[in-house]
């Protein structure tokens, strides 16, 4: 009788150990968590009480407000007349104040995923039609629409999104958006200036 108990006990233990999953789904406990959890509002702390008032963190900023350290906002509206008017807007950044290396970093993170590291419209998401993205991103160098696009229109499109492209105002500040536009314009300029030796345009990119 005793032996049966021992054997069933062993079997049960084995079953428990085998059925234990490797994926850890709970964060565990803290020892004396007096100073483990913040009393003050922290990033990602619950905002249930704000939700009741209909405030979500996906909301747009109040009109006329400006992020700290950002440059003055962009006044044109996201409509067809704003798009047409944007062609007359000039970049507020002077050419020598733009850090093209930083602009390239921003381009590679935010734009190259679709428009390609060489601005050829063939980023990893398109990949000659084999990527997951269903529509072809514009070739920023050769496509006549983007090659002749005014910098203001380009900024407008990055700010509000255009066709399939979404708005990048949440990821890039006003200044950063102008920097990215300046980077694209500089690449377009060097590509059209040095058509026969097209490789020089890509050769100057720092590693």
């Amino acid at each position, binding site marked *: 009788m005793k032996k049966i108990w021992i054997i069933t006990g*062993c079997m049960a233990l*084995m079953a428990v*150990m*085998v059925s234990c*999953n*490797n*994926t*850890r*789904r*709970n*964060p*565990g*406990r*803290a*020892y004396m*968590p007096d*100073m*483990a*959890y*913040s*009393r003050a509002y*922290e*990033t*990602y702390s619950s905002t249930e009480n704000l939700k009741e008032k209909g405030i*979500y*963190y*996906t*909301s*747009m900023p109040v009109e006329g407000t400006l992020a700290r350290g950002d440059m003055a906002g962009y006044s044109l509206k996201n409509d067809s007349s704003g798009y047409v008017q944007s062609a007359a807007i000039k970049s507020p950044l002077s050419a020598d104040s733009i850090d093209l*290396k930083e602009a390239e970093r921003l381009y*590679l*993170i*935010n734009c190259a*995923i679709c428009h390609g590291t060489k601005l050829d419209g063939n980023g*990893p*998401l398109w990949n*000659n*039609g*084999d*990527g*997951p*993205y*269903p*529509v*072809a*991103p*514009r070739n920023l160098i050769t496509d006549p*629409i983007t090659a002749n696009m005014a910098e203001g229109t380009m900024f407008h499109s990055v700010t509000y999104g255009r*066709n*399939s*492209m*979404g*708005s*990048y105002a*949440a*990821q890039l500040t006003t200044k950063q958006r102008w920097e990215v536009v300046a980077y694209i314009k500089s690449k377009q300029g060097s590509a059209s200036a040095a058509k026969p030796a097209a490789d020089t345009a890509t050769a100057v990119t720092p590693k």
Partner: protein
Amino acid sequence: MIPCKPIGKKLTLTLLSVFVFSFVYVSAQDIAAGKAIFMGKCASCHQIGKNGTGPALAGLEERHKWADHNELLKWINNPAGYMKNDPYTQGLLAEYKSMMTGFSDITLKDVDDLVAYINDADAKAKAGPSTTTTTGEPEKGNSNAIIFGVISLILAIIALILMQVNSNLKKMSDDAEGISRPEQVPFYKNKIYIAMMALIFFAVAGYYFSKAAIGLGRQTDYAPVQPIYYSHKVHAGINQISCLYCHGSAWDSKHAAIPAVNICMNCHKSINEYVKGPKLYDEAGNEINGTAEIAKLYKAAGFDPAKPNDWDPSKAKPIEWVKIHNLPDHVYFNHSQHIRAGKVQCQSCHGEVTAMDEVKQVSELSMGWCINCHRETKVDFNYSDSTGNKFYSIYEKFHNDIKNHKMDSVSVKDIGGLECQKCHY
């Protein structure tokens, strides 16, 4: 009804492939030319099988007057002019809200090629799903453990039986030879046995107890179930999206923030199904339907894939992702300080996220772990050129020591990486 289904399926399949092949055979060159034009001029707005910025082009010959390629040519060459006295295309503009770009350089031959390519691609897409029957079983990781467990159990039982047989045989031989020995003490009453068992018990229990005590407040391997099965492997690995595309605030703030819904929608406005990537599985080996997971995102975003142009991002509701990497409140950690000034790669602490479907915490994020890295990591002490950090110019003594070969490099510990107040204040 066809009584024998597989044959019926095969029949339609062969018919389809014959159809496709004949098509390819007849006009392979035209299709290739059409594909080149489509990718160059049309694919920015049009897809074959789905509506996007513009309508889907599959079956376009059955719509309006497009069976007549001359009409189609007129429309493509000058959409604004064509539309003036054509209610059908006016309706299209009202539906899609963006005017089609005119391509005046397209010729009638180009239109023929384009339509040939579109029909071919459509037929291939329709034949596609029934031909692909690749299924991969997820690997079971713990099968070895089961085998070892069973083997050791069997061996233990055999050992017990043999011991029993041995003592019985001894008893029998003793009885036969007439030797009477004192009654054997059963092993659970034997003091040496008990003492040894107690020692082993305390050693094992002490090991597990101290291990559990050290593990209090640590979350290594923590991988919570997220509200949406989001695969970092698919996004950051296969599709090479930079970590900073979504977690951009890691560059200039304390937190590597979780992206808001609109950042997901930058791409998922157009990518509304998961078909091209590898199959996804949850931890129990059940297959995950990627398209259904994208639909969960659409629900949170308030996005209707049938009417992509009507989407209002400001109506989106946040997705309640579960935070994985948690530090106690009495520790200060700043992402930008580490990745921007310290030039630490994300993977150094978070592991190969690009290979993880479900993200789990790889590092233990304990104090010993932090300190160890601060002891070992060398500081890039260059401050003179544009890639360097001008802050390091204040450490004159270290620069002199390096110049005089008194020290070969500076670690984080030398510039205050072990000070309590660096992280606890």
